């Protein structure tokens, strides 16, 4: 249990770093790290299949797509960097306040509902899930990748010219 909590805490930290950091490359690393930690959590929660997908698709494939996209953008100049950094922190101060207030309200007023979670379903055969049960979702995944590639082409391809 304690390892899960530590992993969850690290995951939140990695996610916060992903959105707080100024450099896009650092954001990609942060996102990949978040995915890796999420994969570890999924593995710990007896879902190795989901963990493998998270690791390969989110930490791997998605990071590569982001890297390609970032390669089409221009680097922020050193003169602009301090201002950007300051602006980023100013923008997220409100978030800290919201988290603190929400946490306080939860501690004071939230009562855990009385219900029992059903037992986790057994792992199904991967081949069965992919090729027999979720045909449509597989097609969906192909289309999502195509739409993502088109998005990159529309927004960033011309910048390189």
């Amino acid at each position, binding site marked *: 249990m304690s390892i899960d909590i530590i992993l969850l805490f690290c995951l939140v930290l990695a996610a916060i770093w992903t959105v707080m950091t100024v450099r896009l490359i650092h954001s990609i690393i942060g996102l990949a790290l978040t995915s890796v930690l999420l994969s570890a959590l999924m593995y710990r929660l007896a879902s190795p299949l989901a963990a493998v997908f998270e690791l390969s698709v989110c930490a791997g494939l998605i990071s590569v797509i982001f890297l390609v996209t970032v390669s089409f953008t221009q680097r922020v100049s050193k003169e602009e960097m301090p201002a950007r950094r300051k602006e980023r922190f100013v923008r997220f101060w409100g978030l800290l306040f919201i988290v603190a207030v929400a946490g306080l309200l939860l501690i004071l007023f939230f009562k855990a509902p009385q219900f029992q979670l059903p037992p986790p379903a057994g792992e199904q055969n991967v081949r069965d899930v992919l090729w027999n049960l979720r045909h*449509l979702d597989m097609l969906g995944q192909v289309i999502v990748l*195509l*739409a993502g590639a088109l998005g990159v082409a529309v927004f960033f391809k011309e910048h390189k010219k």
Partner: protein
Amino acid sequence: MPSLFVLTPFLLLVVVNLPFKFLRKQIALWPAVGGMLVAQVVFSTFYPLNIGRGIADPFEQFFMFGLSLDSLSSIMLLIIGIVAFVSVLVASSMISEERQVFHFLNLILISVIGMNTTVLISDIFSLYVFVEITALAVFVLIAMEKGKFAIEGTFKYLILSAVASVFMLTAIAFFLMAVGSTSFAAIKDAFASNSSDAFLLKLGTGLFLCGLLIKCGVVPFHGWVPDAYSAAPASVSVLLAGVVTKVSGVYVLLRLFGTVFILNAALQNTLLLVGIISICFAAFASLTQTDFKRMLAYSSISQVGYIVLALGAATPLAFVGAVFHFFNHAIFKSLLFVNAASLEKRLGTTDMDKIGGMGSKMKVTSATSLIGLLSTAGIPPLSGFWSKLIIIIALFSAGRPVYAVIALLASALTLAYFLSLERKVFFGKVVASPAAETKASFGITFSEVLLAAITVAAGLGFAFILNTWLLPLKEIVH
């Protein structure tokens, strides 16, 4: 048969992306996409008349998509076909650069795949996947011209969509935990059996509702709608306002909350309240707008409010009214956005302070916009009148007279802001002189006439539509 609606646009998508230059020529692309959409319109028009139901599905043996076509899906396929076809027609008049044409058609094909699958699916997780696919294609379409406002509109839509996704995914996880499956049938059974996991089901329903209300763009989740609708290119505004938000938000709401989930009193009251607040707030907000497209966007929020309100009444008659208003709204709102495209093409602006006296110069746009505006306001015998009438009768018979009266009064408000728009743009003093291009393009004029004709025909042929398309809907409602 239903899988053809997914695989045909997918195959077309693959074909246009093959590395053969002649396939990318506009002359081959426009008719191919337009023809496919016309075929969809023809099929879904005749489906309720029992014509074409026996067509064999050549892909049935290879793919197990679990799609099903019922009376609600066929109406949705008809709406998607008509609005996407009109969007393609408008784009053919407004986009000329070969590369942009290629990107536009690719993205519209992806959004059609997403929407067609969304209306045919019977699994809540796959439904989420295809709602996201539709949104993904539309994010790129809105910002395609890369203007500052377009990027801002897309960004707002993207962020709020991401929030909606979190709600919907969490809800799906709860349903999976409670039911052990994500199919509509299993979830419906779990609701009907009043199982021990009632708490998880209620939590899932509440979260899914929050996500869907964001996708619908109703008050108080409407922040992204005016920006996205007004900043998008003309052809994309038609698609977005006419069908995308309707299918990915309103249709899912109708399908799940009308035929799968069982609405308790709290949910009914929530829907009624959200509906009536959206109707009134957006109608008042429309009065203050000076941009044609922003006014239409607020009007859209208000009209979606009627659909949500009807759903809150939770009776089969109200459901029929909601679906008919969905159809009418998709058609007349697309018509009004095509009118906006026509003005934009001719004058280069949709700012109503800079436009005036266009009635004599743009006769088709002026006449068709009047039909669209009167139908939106619910003036008989146009289609909007009948759908609003059904909704108001359903509210009275469900014991909600206060909501019915407010909805009725808000219709008068709709008429007020649209008459003010009509007076300013078409009948006021001539403010701007037309830009270099003065001749309306065929694609836009044809779209205006087509949509206006459907609005009039749906009003005059209401009895036929009610018996053929709408009354079969009662069979799928709880």
